């Protein structure tokens, strides 16, 4: 970086160089004069040439020219007749010309040599800089976590970074000079010819490779290849950058496995559901037919034999018919119950006020002649399956009607509490037979009954159906009561 050297220093070096010219000419003059004193002539010319040569060698062209001028003047002054004068005779001209010509030749050669030397030095410095830069770059490549190596066109590894050493387990000394595909036992996703063709065409290739490490285990890498071409555009080297994706591959494999398992389970579930449906269908069709026949033929028999049957036989007949009819109801209720679990809920805004009115008008046909006081509060609009919620009210209200049968004046209250923000809590309260809280957890079970069939008829499916419907709406059910003190049933459904 010559341009940054201070001016002062460069001036000193110039004066130093011209000093060399003065000193060397002086050093040549001194022995010349001494030898002349001893009458030894014609030695001064080679001495001056020697001084010029040294100056040219050491200080360059400028000082050399100065030394030629000084040498010529010294020669004329000290050695050519007349001595101690700058005048000279024609006969002396050849000696001066020889000195100047010879000296010029030396300077010329010397300058050529110096130029070559300078160029060589420059080239060396440049090379050194380049080497330093390359080394720096290589050490940067060593810093990266990525696995990078370079191979030539015959796949021989020429560079191997620390990432490669860490991933594969071979040191650069072990890896350099080996054929990469042999060393790593590469498994390609496509024929190598195709990959190379793409690399030649586009200069790049990306894909997943399986490599074998030094310890024999394998690794899956996301590999990126870049092709470097030389000045003549011929392929020169391939840089391969690899990222270990083995863990990711394992996870993908795991997820695939889990998905497969899930698919299998869901297929099994579907099959189970289909079986259940087939079972329900079979129950619906095949169990009802013989029941109908029992009832039908018993009825025909009673009609035909009524004159010969005594009272006891008539009662047997009635029990058969009632039992068959009860079984019919059981089957119907059980099917309805199972259907709730199977069908999709179709949720819409449901006006509970209106729904209760509908159910009540249906129930009133069965409550003729009874004294029932209905207290109906305002109910909000909720979000649910209208048909299913209708079934909830039918079950709860007909229960309330049924269990207040013994009361001279039945009181049934329907309302809602406003405790929760996101859901509606509806209650149905009656002053009927009630129940013992000891058995409250049995209340919502299928076929669970807390009363004798003689007292209150029923299949024991109603409240189980209510619970199932409310659960399918994401709500809860609970009951509160005491024997002979009436009962209250609560259920919650999502608010609109």
């Amino acid at each position: 970086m010559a341009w940054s050297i201070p001016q002062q220093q460069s001036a000193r070096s110039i004066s130093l160089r011209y000093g060399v010219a003065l000193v060397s000419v002086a050093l040549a003059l001194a022995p010349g004069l001494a030898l002349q004193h001893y009458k030894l002539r014609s030695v001064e010319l080679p001495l001056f040439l020697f001084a010029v040569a040294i100056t040219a060698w050491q200080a360059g062209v400028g000082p050399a020219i100065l030394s030629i001028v000084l040498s010529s003047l010294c020669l004329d002054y000290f050695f050519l007749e007349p001595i101690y004068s700058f005048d000279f005779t024609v006969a002396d001209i050849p000696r001066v010309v020889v000195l100047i010509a010879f000296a010029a030749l030396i300077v010329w050669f010397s300058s050529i040599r110096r130029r070559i030397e300078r160029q060589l030095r420059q080239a060396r410095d440049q090379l050194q800089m380049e080497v330093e830069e390359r080394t720096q770059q290589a050490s940067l490549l060593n810093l990266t976590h990525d696995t990078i190596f370079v191979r030539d066109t015959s796949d021989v590894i020429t560079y191997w970074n620390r990432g490669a050493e860490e991933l594969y387990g071979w040191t650069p000394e072990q890896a350099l000079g080996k054929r990469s595909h042999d060393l790593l036992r590469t498994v390609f996703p496509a024929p190598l010819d195709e990959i190379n063709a793409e690399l030649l065409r586009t200069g790049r290739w990306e894909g997943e490779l399986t490599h074998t490490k030094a310890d024999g285990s394998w690794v899956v890498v996301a590999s990126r290849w870049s092709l470097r071409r030389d000045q003549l555009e011929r392929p020169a080297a391939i840089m391969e950058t690899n990222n270990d994706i083995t863990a990711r591959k394992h996870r993908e494999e795991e997820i695939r496995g889990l998905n497969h398992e899930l698919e299998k389970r869901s297929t099994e579930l579907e099959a189970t559901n289909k079986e259940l449906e087939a079972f329900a269908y079979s129950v619906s069709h095949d169990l009802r037919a013989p029941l109908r026949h029992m009832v039908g033929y018993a009825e025909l028999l009673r009609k035909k034999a009524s004159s010969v049957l005594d009272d006891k036989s008539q009662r047997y007949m009635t029990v058969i018919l009632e039992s068959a009819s009860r079984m019919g109801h059981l089957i119907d209720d059980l099917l309805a119950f199972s259907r709730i679990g199977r069908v999709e809920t179709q949720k819409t805004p449901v006006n509970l006020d209106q729904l209760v009115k509908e159910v009540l008008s249906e129930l009133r046909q069965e409550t003729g002649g009874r004294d029932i006081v209905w207290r109906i509060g305002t109910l909000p609009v909720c979000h649910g399956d209208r048909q299913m919620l209708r079934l909830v009210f039918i079950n709860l209200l007909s229960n309330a009607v049924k269990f207040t049968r013994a009361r001279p004046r039945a009181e049934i209250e329907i309302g809602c509490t406003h405790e929760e923000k996101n859901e509606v809590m509806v209650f149905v309260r009656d002053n009927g037979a009630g129940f013992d809280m000891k058995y409250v957890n049995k209340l919502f079970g299928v076929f669970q009954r807390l009363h004798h069939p003689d007292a209150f008829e029923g299949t024991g499916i109603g409240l189980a159906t209510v619970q199932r419907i409310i659960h399918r709406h994401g709500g809860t059910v609970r009951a509160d009561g005491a024997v002979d003190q009436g009962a209250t049933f609560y259920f919650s459904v999502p608010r609109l």
Partner: protein
Amino acid sequence: MDTRLGRILMVEDDPRDVELTLTALEEYNLANEVVVTHDGAEALDYLHCRGEFSTRSGENPAVILLDLKLPKVDGLEVLQQIKSDPKLKVIPVVVLTSSREEKDMVASYQLGVNAYVVKPVDFHEFVNAIRELGVFWAVINVPPPGSARK
């Protein structure tokens, strides 16, 4: 009333159901013109006048009482064949089944059934249902031209 009675084709595999149905119809003098076939294939043979029915006169019944669960060719398939046949599709078809399954009902209506009746377990209700069906379809309803009449 008898002179205007239409012919009823009953497709029912269960002999007890056949007997109970005929008994119910008998009470109202509707049983005389009931033709009973015991599976879907036989019903289709009857309707197309082929096989053992190749000699019958080619009139259509006034109504078909069709069970769904049948051997060989099931009820829905019989219904589908009837409703896709230009000559047969005018015959009123009443599905008379034990099945309360919604999908059966929906499928039947989609195929163009004229009525869907679930056989009641209670005998009185059953008799009432059969009687009303018989009276309506074989007596009150005016069947399409070409139907058999007594």
